């Protein structure tokens, strides 16, 4: 058996404990606990079904599946980003008292949201079968790849935002606004095909969310992996991560003076 060095084992433990803490605290004092992570998306699917299929009677019968297959991954991203705005300030007492890598707090936040996302996957599977489609073995390849790409991208955004908000508290309101815009310019509630031609490529190349969200949707709806989209998403996630990391490193050195 390989012996993992002590300090590394300790850091893995710490990251996991911080993640666990985020998850337990979210549902602390509730009776259903983590079940809410399953129940919430399920209720959301139900609301969409009533609104779009029963009341609005839109021609696209499987619209709830279409929308939710991109909305759930988007929710993982957006809740992580909004949470990262306050995560350093909220954990000020830990930062001031214990020497540990501060980005663990951010990573733990993104990981805990990833757990909520994973718990919502059965809802998507259920909808897939409800609309007469089937799950496919290719999911087992596609889901880990997309999870990884989105994880890297989200971390990149979150670590940058978390330190910036310490210096400029106002930034969190700007983030909320930008998230809203990003939601509407990304193909989440509509299909990539519906964007008129010159803008479609623009969106695909310059909005990392476009390739990522479209990849999730195609994976769940048509059991296919578009490798060129995945490639674009991977490349942009690396760029986002790098930029985010550089901002974090730059601002991190003087963080203790302002927090």
């Amino acid at each position, binding site marked *: 058996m390989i012996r993992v060095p*002590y300090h590394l*084992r*300790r850091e893995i*433990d*710490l990251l*996991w*404990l*911080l993640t666990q*803490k985020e998850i*337990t*605290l979210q549902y*602390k*004092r509730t009776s259903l606990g983590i079940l809410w992570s399953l129940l919430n998306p399920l209720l959301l699917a139900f609301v969409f079904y009533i609104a779009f299929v029963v009341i609005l009677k839109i021609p696209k019968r499987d619209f709830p599946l279409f929308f939710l297959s991109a909305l759930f991954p988007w929710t993982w991203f957006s809740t992580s980003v909004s949470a990262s705005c306050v995560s350093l300030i909220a954990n000020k*007492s*830990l*930062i*001031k*008292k*214990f*020497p*540990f890598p501060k980005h663990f707090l951010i990573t733990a936040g993104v990981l805990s949201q990833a757990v909520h996302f994973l718990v919502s996957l059965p809802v998507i599977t259920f909808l897939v079968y409800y609309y007469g489609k089937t799950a496919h073995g290719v999911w087992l390849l596609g889901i880990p790849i997309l999870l990884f790409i989105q994880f890297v991208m989200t971390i990149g955004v979150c670590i940058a935002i978390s330190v910036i908000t310490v210096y*400029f*508290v*106002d*930034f969190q309101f700007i983030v909320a606004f930008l998230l809203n815009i990003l939601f509407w310019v990304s193909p989440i509630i509509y299909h990539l095909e519906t964007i008129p031609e010159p803008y479609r490529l623009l969106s695909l190349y310059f909005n990392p969310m476009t390739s990522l969200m479209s990849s999730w949707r195609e994976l769940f709806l048509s059991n296919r992996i578009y490798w060129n989209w995945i490639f674009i998403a991977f490349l942009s996630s690396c760029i986002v991560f790098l930029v985010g990391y550089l901002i974090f490193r730059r601002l991190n*050195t003087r963080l*203790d*003076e*302002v927090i």
Partner: protein
Amino acid sequence: MSEWVVDLNHVWKKYLLLRDRPGFKESFVNFHRFLKKREGEDHYFYALKDLTLNIKTGECLGIIGKNGAGKSTLLSLMLGTILPSRGRVIVKDRVTPLLELGSGFHPDLTGRENVVLNGVLLGLTKEDVLKKMPSIIDFSEMEEFIDVPMRTYSSGMYLRLAFSVAFHTDPSILIIDEVLSVGDEGFQRKSKEAILKLIKTGTTTVLVSHNLQAIGGLCTRVLWLDHGEVVAEGDPKEIIESYRKKMA
């Protein structure tokens, strides 16, 4: 074993004075001014000025000085929670802080959950904390309440558990900021004895206190800080005496 464990070399720590901290609005409106570096010395407060210090293995160093002399800044630098503005800090071993006990606890987690998180934050693996759990609980005398959310604890119970975790992490460098009294009388005696035992058995200790008698009785060397600078350093008796004269 190496001869020294902590080394500070010409360390400065400055803080931007809060009144000069540019707001978001200001940085937008006066963007040109925001870009300009504010290097004027009057914008900064120096918590430590050109401090050089070397702590040997097994030494017990006492730090005295008025409020705002830079004692806590110095401790935080050794702990690694803040970085020097200039200079270099090298710490060769794991530092266990006994400051603001219990501030790492979350009120909505149970005592047991908090002990595990705190122990790992203090440098142990989860496995090790779980191994020590029985003796942590035993020392704190909290077995009845260990699986109850900590928001139901009294402040004394908070401190007991916090001290017990810190004490059980096998400190190699101990940093103490005026915490020689924890909990009720019985526990106070117990915690004091535990600390004394650690110091006497050669655990490197840095002790900040306004209790000059305690400093004189425990420390092998004393550092007197004032306005971020070293006033005097050396034999506890001499320094405490001149400090007393100055204060009187």
